């Protein structure tokens, strides 16, 4: 009896009789397309795109970061936030908000995660042209659930993590890590194709872009 695997592979091979046997199966990208599209100063473009998605976004200097984290959490009215184990303590130097730690090794139960007021994380890379922040599960970004279940996500992006366009970002990522690309708060266009921000994922995304020149 042939297995489904043999059947499918057999049919595929039978269907490809026209392909010369010596045609190489491997292929590299031709890359006739641009690495980026010269849309303006990187950080300005990132801020513009995030703003377009209705994310809250601010540019801050490194020495202002702790104060801006505190101010953002206060504006949000957050009492308790989930913080991945690898997030720098310095971010929280000026806030009295309760930090609930989470990590792969010591994960919060789902109900507890559902009970916090937000999540504060870093990111792996950000893409200016598309207004995208990519998380890769490093200890300062945490498990995927931590930035999904709470209704508010505050993300710290350092200027050196920002690239102009998608190709540069893809080349920096490690495929074997769980990757989440985030471009604004959750949204839907399912009703008459009108975009509405805020469905199942965090309804508010706030981004602090940290650069030496603010």
């Amino acid at each position, binding site marked *: 009896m042939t297995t489904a695997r043999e059947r*499918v592979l057999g049919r595929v091979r039978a269907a490809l009789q026209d392909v010369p046997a010596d045609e190489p199966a491997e292929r590299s990208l031709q890359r006739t397309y641009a690495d980026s599209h010269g849309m303006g100063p990187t950080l300005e473009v990132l801020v513009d795109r995030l703003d377009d998605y209705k994310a809250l976004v601010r540019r801050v200097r490194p020495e202002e970061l702790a104060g801006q984290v505190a101010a953002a959490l206060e504006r949000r009215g957050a009492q308790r936030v989930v913080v991945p184990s690898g997030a720098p303590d310095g971010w929280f130097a000026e806030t009295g908000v309760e930090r609930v730690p989470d990590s792969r090794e010591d994960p919060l139960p789902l109900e507890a995660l559902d009970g916090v007021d937000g999540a504060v994380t870093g990111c792996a890379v950000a893409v200016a042209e598309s207004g995208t922040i990519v998380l890769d599960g490093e200890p300062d970004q945490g498990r995927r659930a931590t930035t999904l279940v709470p209704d508010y996500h505050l993300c710290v992006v350092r200027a050196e993590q920002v690239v102009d366009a998608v190709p540069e970002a893809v080349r920096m990522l490690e495929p074997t890590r769980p990757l989440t690309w985030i471009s604004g708060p959750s949204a*839907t266009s*399912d009703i008459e194709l009108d975009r509405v921000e805020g469905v199942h994922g965090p309804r508010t995304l706030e981004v602090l872009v940290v650069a030496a020149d603010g």
Partner: protein
Amino acid sequence: MSATFLGIPPFPEAAHTAVEDSQLRHNLRKATHTIRDKRGQVVDELGDDWSALRSEGAAIKEHTLRHLDHYLEQVEDSVQRAGGTVHWASDAAEANEIVTRLVHETGQSDVVKVKSMATQEIELNQALERAGITAYETDLAELIVQLGDDLPSHILVPAIHLGRAQIREIFLQQMAEWGVPAPPGLTDDPRALAEAARVHLRERFLSTRTAISGANFVVADSGTLVVLESEGNGRMCLTLPETLISVVGIEKIVPTFDDLEVFMQLLPRSSTGERMNPYTSMWTGITPGDGPQEFHLVLLDNGRTDVLGDTVGRQALRCIRCSACLNACPVYERAGGHAYGSVYPGPIGAILTPQLQGMSSEVDKALPYASSLCGACYEVCPVAIDIPEVLVHLREQVAEGPGHTGEKAMMAGAEAALSSPATLDAAQRAASLARGAVPQHLPGLAGNWTDTRSVPEIPEESFRRWWKKRGGERS
């Protein structure tokens, strides 16, 4: 859920009914024009680079299809190395059986689902229902369709045929039967409707232990699966459950992770007309301590190898399901998705459905004609599928099949008349002599044509005769 495409009449008849529904035409016109404009803006923003990306996207997909056996084996190897289990299904029945068994093994009777064309194609929800398993759709538009016991009518926005007031009615009447009811004062503001969906599904996400998804891409070299979405329902399903089962057509493979740098630009801009969709999840097998700890990939053929075997029709398998061709199509805009009688509507459906199903039914045979061949679909296709070329190719196959005796007789007559100058001359002379006797309305098959057109006037003499009379001078 019992709605099915089975029993929808062939396109001409179904479209005839659809175009008379003014609410439907209003909804479709508004939606397709909105998204068409948005797409135009974000595509134009990339200037000439768009065509370079489009060529590369087409080349990647075409290459992968030409070596699909190689890449399928590579996917199997990569996914298994990353801790996933790979299953093969040659048709819908096998795929449904595998998924049903896997769900039974989890001991669960409820599953949450991420919007997936492949699982709609195989009617997985109905198969699960027969096995006592309830599948909850979580994408907002899929939820609307499921609650309304309706059928999807668009690849990206399955409820595009419904307006906000109709959606409000469905929520008010049906949500309670499926779980958390709609709030009593629900308005038809899209914000309020989205909020009602959030509340309705929240507990479901937090408590359901098994999820079923499709995938936009499967990366062969890394074993990574990719799902693009907007609402976060995808992230919920892909992250919170203990077991994840992904059903993916064998044409969804791309060779390398780097190929995503092309498709992550092409797909969002073509699909929702955004620079990027709000959320994309990429996962590779199992990550200890993060996300589902059991992962199954079901590789689905279900007619795809038949499409692959047709060197003209093969290009339909490049499709990345963006739905730009639906939004650009003047026929889709007027007839809507249901008239195509399949989960794949619009121009891509008109070439994909008959090929997947083997042109066995009247519905399939009518689909290659559900187009004016204007070419707008090809223009907007991010992987350059020449849909008009495939439509004409499929029309040839339909015409060569049984039936169509009238057309065949006329074509045979034309062939005889055109086969030599002498017979053409004789035929043209006969036509000129009979010109007074040709009625304005032709009988029989040709009457379909003269219903809406005038019969052209036959000249006294043919061009060839007039030319000859002038001495046939050459310039």
